[in-house]
């Protein structure tokens, strides 16, 4: 097991001077990522997926619980942790320093870690993300969105990490470019572990082998992608697959809204208000339920299965 999250909660407390009631962005989350496994984290906005991504690169500290990389708490690592896990961000316009050239941007992580033969490594990673040689010494602000995102991916690859966390890497790009980036991730995914965070069911199910459904700071289901697509266990999964974009918005089935905001601050299931199986019990979050399938297991948090 490469990365393991155990009972993670993350709360935001407001500013130093004006403390307020803690707001929990993640509530008691546990899951793990294996070597060379790609995991999709699927969640709508406000579900805590960005917080989860930032947690894995130590930009956010958990309020409760611990994160382990190779069995060791990630906050007990020094600078060498930053070599093992790197991140690709959402907005390519902001992801690269406009004063840097492509080459400098990719070289900087190597420079920071004092790695020799930088020239070869930079050439190798830039080629692997299909950046043509004539762009190598351009300033990063001269590139298009898709090219910038490729450079950002190259930068994440430069240190040859064990795990790449991609926080919505395609959502700021138009569809054709987004699919190119998606292909790139598919190509890369077996060289190291990958956490692919997205709100888009179609993109997410194309990249990952395992899918984690996140809503309102809670995990509702962890399944292999194939099984999830055939038959989602959680009613929210059913809702997601029912709401895939179709030619006409009038042909959509069911409600468009997943989570109601009022459920964000309570102890219940975040989906319950729009859930067809809403029950009095749902005001408390259900315990985990494990369903065995051929290759592995599926885990679901829903009162239906208890």
């Amino acid at each position: 097991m490469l990365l393991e999250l155990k009972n993670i909660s993350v709360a935001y407390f407001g500013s130093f001077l004006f403390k307020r009631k803690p707001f929990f962005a993640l509530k008691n989350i546990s899951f793990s990522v294996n070597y060379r496994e790609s995991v999709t984290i699927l969640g709508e906005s406000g579900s805590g997926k960005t917080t989860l991504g930032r947690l894995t690169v130590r930009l956010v500290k958990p309020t409760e619980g611990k994160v382990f990389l190779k069995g060791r708490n990630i906050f007990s690592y020094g600078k060498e942790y930053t070599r093992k896990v790197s991140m690709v961000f959402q907005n390519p316009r902001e992801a690269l320093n406009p004063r840097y050239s492509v080459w400098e941007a990719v070289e900087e992580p190597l420079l920071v870690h004092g790695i020799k033969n930088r020239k070869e490594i930079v050439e190798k990673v830039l080629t692997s993300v299909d950046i043509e040689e004539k762009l190598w010494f351009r300033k990063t602000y001269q590139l298009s969105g898709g090219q910038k995102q490729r450079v950002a991916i190259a930068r994440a690859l430069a240190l040859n990490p064990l795990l790449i966390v991609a926080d919505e890497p395609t959502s700021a790009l138009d569809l054709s470019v987004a699919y190119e980036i998606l292909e790139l991730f598919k190509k890369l995914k077996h060289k190291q572990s990958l956490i692919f965070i997205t709100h888009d069911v179609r993109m997410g199910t194309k990249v990952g082998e395992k899918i984690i459904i996140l809503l309102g700071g809670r995990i509702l289901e962890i399944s292999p992608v194939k099984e999830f697509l055939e038959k989602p266990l959680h009613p929210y999964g059913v809702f997601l697959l029912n709401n895939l974009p179709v030619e006409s918005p009038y042909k959509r089935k069911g409600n468009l809204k997943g989570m109601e905001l009022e459920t964000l601050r309570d102890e219940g299931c975040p989906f319950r208000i729009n859930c067809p199986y809403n029950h009095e019990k749902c005001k408390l979050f259900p315990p985990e339920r494990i369903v065995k399938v051929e290759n592995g297991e599926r885990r679901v948090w829903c009162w239906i299965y208890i």
Partner: protein
Amino acid sequence: MKYLALGILFTFFLLAIFADFIAPYPYDLQNREAPYHPPTRVHILDSSGRLIHPYVHPYRLVNPIFKTYKEDKSQKCKVEFFTQTPYGFKLFYTPPRCGVYLLGTDKLGRDVFSRLVYGARISLSVGLIGVGITFLLGILFGSLAGYYGGAIDAAVMRLTEVLMSIPAFYLMLTLRAIFPLDMPSVAVFFLIIFILSFVGWAGLARVIRGLILSYRSYEYVLAAKTYGASTFRIIFKHILPNTYFYLIVSATSAIPAYILGEASLSLLGLGIQEPYPSWGNMLSEARSLTVITFFPWILSPGVAIFLVVVAFNILGDTLVSDKEKIG
């Protein structure tokens, strides 16, 4: 306007840098026979209106009480250019019997133009060095506050608020009062710079703190954190280079405050001490209405201050509007 402002600043900086060459007399050379000498008229045309080599007539003191002078047309001296003089190699000079006072002389018969040129050295360098030190302090405190946030931010910001809530001029006077009045002139020069920077850093620190606060959450800054770049590297390679434009603008608009601050301290006799000239202490002679009425050329350092301050402000403004045009 931009080029006019740049031209004015360029001229004054040239004057300051080459003061030894441009000023015809040393700043402390007194001519007791010519107090309040009016600006010497330089003749470049002869009686028939043809352009000739410039010459001047000597001036005779007609009334020693009211200090009125008359041109003595019976004698004339050619203005010599690029010539060796008793005071060194100069741009222009006349034989001692004439004297060329482009902006007249003061009470002690010292050439106002020479003192203005030497004074530019002090007045302009106070602005530049002062802004430089302010920038160091402002960047240090501003980036600490903006980058770390929380308690450090709150502490630094409250400190700047205390500093800014005290009227700057009284703060300068108070700080000056801490130190003895009779100090070597070099010490006074650096003391004034220190006082001005101490008063001025608060505003800049707040600007920088705000900029860093907004750039801190940019994804390339976060990315730099995720690959292990040090705080120093993040601030100086990723944040500050992207804000340099705003820094330049705030510097150009801060310099006038320093020039004026030095001038006001020196005007009150608390700044640069005689015989060393600065625009402020040259103006202190012009505090009497009689002097201004009868010898208006004494005010010329005021004109110089005005020109430089306006030029710096115009420069700052045009930089802002140019940036807006570029986007």
